[in-house]
C-alpha cells in the first residue's frame, strides 16, 4: 500500500511544482531566467514524420514493387537493378562484380589485434609495468586502480580486482614479474567472465528464420552494426533479411539498405514515422516466406529513460515473438560510454531481455571497461566487438585474445 501513498505524495508534489511553475512564470522571466521560448506546449510524442517525407524513399532500383495498400513494409530488393519480386535475391551470380564478398568472421579478432593493441597499450602495458615493479607500495596500487578507473571499469569492479590482485601477490610473495604477469592476466580474464556463452544463436528453426533484434541508445552504431552483422552472416553462407524498424531517424532505412545492397541482402522497410512493430512484423513475414535463415531487425535509438519509447520497443519484441521466441536481442553499447552504460544495460534487459552485447568503437582510445560491470551485474556476455570503420571490422568477441592483446 505504501507505493500508493508515495504515488499520491509524489504526484501532489510534482503537481504543485507544475502549478507553481505556470503561475510564477512571468516573474521568473522577468528575473532574467532562461525562458525556453514559446514552445512550452510540445506534445511528448515524436513528430509524425510521415507527412514531411514521402513514404517511399528514393529507390535506386526504380523497380520497387508498389506497396500494397494496408501494408506498411515494402521489401526493397537487394542489389542494383534487382527484380521486382518481393524478396528475391539480387541475382548474386551475375552481379558478382558489384556484390562484395565479406571476409570470414573467424579469426577476425586476431587479425584486428594490432588495432586493439594500439588503443589499449596504455592500459595493458601500464598495468604490466606497474605490477612488475620490485616493490608494490601503496602508490603503485593506487596507480593500478587509477588505470582501471580510467578505462571506465567503474569504482566497484576496480576495487575488487585490486583487492584480488593484492591478496594473490601477497601470498605468492616475491615480486616475480612473470608471476605478477600471470596473476594480472588471470584476474583480467576472470573480470571478463570467459565462461559465458558468446555464440550467436542464428540457426534457422523448423519452418521459420532465426530472429535477431538489435537495440540501443542513440548514436551507438546500431544500424552500422546490423549492416556489419549481415556481412558476418553472409560470410557464413546464411540467407539474411534485414528489417529497418528504425522509422524515426532521418534516412536510417536508407543507411541500412545501402549496407544490405553491398552484400545482396534484401531490406524490408516501412514509411518514415510508421509503427516500427509493423515493419518488424513485415520483415519477419517476408523472411518466413522467403525461407531465409536469419532476420535481423534494426531499431531506432532510444534513451533508456524514455518510457514511451521503451514501451514501443517492447511492442516490437512482442510482435516478433509471434512466430516463436526471438533468438538474439543484441544491445549495442558504445565503448566510450561511461557509467551510464550499466543503467542502459539494466533497463534494456528489463524491457526486452538482452541476450548479448555488441561493443562498438573499440578502435578508438576508449577501453569499454563498462562492459565488465555489465557482464557481472546482468550476466549478459559481450558477443561482438566493433573494431573499426571498415565493413568487416565486426568480430566475435574472444576474451582470451582480448586480454592477450591487452598485455602484449
Amino acid at each position: 500500500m505504501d507505493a500508493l501513498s508515495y504515488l499520491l505524495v509524489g504526484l501532489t508534489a510534482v503537481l504543485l511544482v507544475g502549478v507553481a511553475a505556470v503561475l510564477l512564470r512571468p516573474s521568473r522571466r522577468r528575473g532574467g531566467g532562461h525562458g525556453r521560448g514559446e514552445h512550452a506546449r510540445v506534445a511528448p510524442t515524436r513528430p509524425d514524420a510521415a507527412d514531411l517525407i514521402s513514404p517511399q524513399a528514393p529507390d535506386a532500383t526504380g523497380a520497387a514493387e508498389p506497396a500494397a495498400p494496408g501494408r506498411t513494409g515494402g521489401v526493397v530488393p537487394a542489389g542494383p537493378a534487382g527484380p521486382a519480386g518481393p524478396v528475391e535475391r539480387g541475382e548474386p551470380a551475375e552481379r558478382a562484380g558489384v556484390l562484395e564478398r565479406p571476409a570470414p568472421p573467424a579469426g577476425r579478432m586476431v587479425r584486428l589485434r594490432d588495432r586493439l593493441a594500439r588503443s589499449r597499450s596504455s592500459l595493458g602495458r601500464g598495468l604490466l609495468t606497474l605490477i612488475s615493479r620490485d616493490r608494490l607500495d601503496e602508490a603503485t596500487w593506487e596507480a593500478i586502480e587509477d588505470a582501471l578507473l580510467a578505462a571506465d571499469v567503474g569504482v566497484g569492479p576496480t576495487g575488487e580486482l585490486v583487492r584480488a590482485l593484492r591478496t594473490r601477490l601477497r601470498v605468492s610473495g616475491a615480486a616475480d614479474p612473470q608471476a605478477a604477469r600471470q596473476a594480472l592476466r588471470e584476474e583480467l580474464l576472470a573480470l571478463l567472465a570467459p565462461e559465458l556463452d558468446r555464440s550467436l544463436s542464428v540457426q534457422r528453426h523448423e519452418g521459420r528464420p532465426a530472429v535477431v533484434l538489435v537495440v540501443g541508445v542513440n548514436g551507438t552504431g546500431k544500424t552500422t552494426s546490423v549492416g556489419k552483422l549481415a556481412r558476418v552472416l553472409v560470410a557464413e553462407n546464411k540467407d539474411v533479411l534485414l528489417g529497418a524498424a528504425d522509422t524515426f531517424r532521418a534516412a536510417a532505412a536508407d543507411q541500412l539498405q545501402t549496407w544490405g545492397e553491398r552484400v545482396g541482402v534484401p531490406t524490408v522497410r516501412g514509411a518514415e514515422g510508421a509503427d516500427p512493430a509493423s515493419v518488424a512484423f513485415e520483415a519477419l513475414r517476408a523472411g518466413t516466406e522467403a525461407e531465409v535463415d536469419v532476420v535481423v531487425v534494426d531499431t531506432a535509438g532510444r534513451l533508456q529513460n524514455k518510457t514511451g519509447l521503451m514501451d514501443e520497443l517492447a511492442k516490437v519484441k512482442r510482435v516478433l515473438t509471434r512466430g516463436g521466441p526471438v533468438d538474439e536481442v543484441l544491445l549495442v553499447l558504445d565503448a566510450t560510454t561511461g557509467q551510464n552504460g550499466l543503467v542502459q544495460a539494466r533497463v534494456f534487459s528489463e524491457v526486452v531481455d538482452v541476450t548479448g552485447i555488441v561493443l562498438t568503437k573499440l578502435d578508438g582510445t576508449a577501453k569499454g571497461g563498462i562492459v565488465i560491470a555489465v557482464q557481472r551485474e546482468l550476466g549478459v556476455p559481450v558477443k561482438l566487438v566493433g573494431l573499426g570503420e571498415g565493413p568487416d571490422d565486426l568480430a566475435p568477441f574472444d576474451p582470451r585474445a582480448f586480454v592477450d592483446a591487452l598485455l602484449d
Partner: protein
Amino acid sequence: MFETLSDRLAATFKGLRGKGRLSEEDVEATCRDIRIALLEADVALPVVREFVAAVRQRALGAEVSAALNPAQQVIKIVNEELVGVLGGQTRRVRLAKTAPTVIMLVGLQGSGKTTLAGKLARWFSAQGHQPLLVAADLQRPNAVTQLQVVGERAGVPVFAPQPGNGVGDPVQVARASIEHARTKMRDVVLIDTAGRLGIDSQMMAQAADIRAAVEPDEVLFVLDAMVGQDAVNTAQAFLDGVDFSGVVLTKLDGDARGGAALSVREITGRPIMFASNGEKLEDFDVFHPDRMASRILGMGDVLSLIETAERTFDIEQAAKMAAKLQRGDGFSLEDFLHQMEQVRKMGSLSKILGMLPGMGAMREQIESIDEREVDRVAAIIKSMTPAERSDPRILNGSRRARIARGAGVAVSDVNGLVDRFGQAQKMMRQLGKGGLSGLGALPGMPGLGGGPGGRGRGGKGKSPDKKGKAGRSGNPAKRAMQEQARAGTAGTAGTAGTAFELPAELKDLLPPGS
C-alpha cells in the same frame, strides 16, 4: 549502494550530526566520497584529482557555518566549485563581421552532429538568420540523405553537391559551400562533418583541412553526455587536431550524469555553449552550468523538472487548477486523474520524483514504485461516475464494490485511494487558504500521505498482482522511516515552491536534511 554524493555524504556524516564544523578528518573522509561520486558521474580521473584537491583546500579553510551541517557545507562547496569550473566564461556564438558566419561541427561517430546541425539551423532561423546546412559527411552511408531530411524538417536549405557514401571530397564541398552561401544570401553556414576518432590521423587531417579551407568562426565539438573517461583523450585529440572553440553536450535528456562536461571544460578550457536534450529539433538550449553541476552531483534538478512540467503541462489547465486551489474548493478526483495523466506524460514517475531534491534518502522506495500503480489508480477513478469523481463522499459500500469490480481491484484498494485522496484534498485546501506563498508552510503539514500503519491494505490476498511489488510496510522500522521520508517529501515540495523567487537560496537548501 549509494547513488549520489548527497547520499554518500549524509552517510559519512551520520555520526557527526550536530557537530557543526569540519575537522580535518571529516574533510579527508568526505574527499574520498567526493572522488567516488565524481568518478561514478564519469568525470575524468585527472580532473577528479585536481577538483578534489581544490575542494579539500576550501573545505579546510571554510568558515564554520551556523546554518548548514557539515554535509551540506561540503556539498555547497562542491557545488560552487563545479559551477565555477563549468560556468567560467560562457559566451554567445561569435558571428562574423562580414557574412557568412561559418560554423563547423566535429566529433566522434554517433555523438549527434547531424541532428545538432538541424537544431542549430532551426535556432539560427528563429533568431532571424538565414542558415545553410552543408553536408560534408561523405563517409557514413546516407548521412547526406539524413541531413537533407533534417534540413527539410528545420525548413533550411541543404547544400549537398556530393552523394556521399564514401564518394566525394568533403574539403571541396565545404569550400564550395561558402561561395554558394554568398550567392544565395545565406548568412550562417553550418558544416556537418563525418564522425571521426581522435586517433584516426587521416581523418583528423581531413578535418583540419576543412577548417583551413573555410576558416570557420566557430568550431563546435559535439560530445555525447554519456561518454566516460575517454572524454579527456577525445577532447584533447580534437583540440590538437582541429582546435575547437566551443563544446556542445548532446543527449542530456538521458539519465547519464554527464561528468564529461566537467572533464572537457577543465582539460581544454573551451566553454560549453549549448546543450541538446531531446530528439525533436527544438530540444536545444544554451548551457546552464548550475543545472549541470546539480546533475553531476546527482542532486535534484528542480529547474529541469520545472521545464519538463512547463513543456508537458497544459498551461490553461494548470492555471485553472491553481485558481481552484486558491479558491480552496473542490480539488476533485477528476482533477487528480487529469494531473496524474499530465505527470505521466513527463516520463517515468520514479524519474520525476528523483528530480526532486531531497529524494535521495528515499531512493530505494522510489525505485520500488510500481509504475503500473498509476494505471491502477487511474482505472479506479475511471470506474467512477462523474458525480462520484467530484464528490467522493457519496461513495457508499455498494458503489465501492461496483468501482472495485469495474477497475479489477479489491474494495480495499478503492478505500485506500479514497482515504488518501481525502488527505490530499485537505492539504490542498490548506494550501489554497494560504495562497501559493503558503507553499513554504508545507513542511509543517503532518503526515501528508497518512500513516501507513493505520491504513494498511485489508484485502492483500485479493490482489495478487500487487503483492510484493507494492507491499513494503511489513517492517515497522521501515514503515517509520518511510513515514519520515514522506514528511520530507512534503518539505521538499515546499522548498521547490518557494525557490522560484530565490533560485540562489535553493542551492543551499538542496542537500537533504536526512
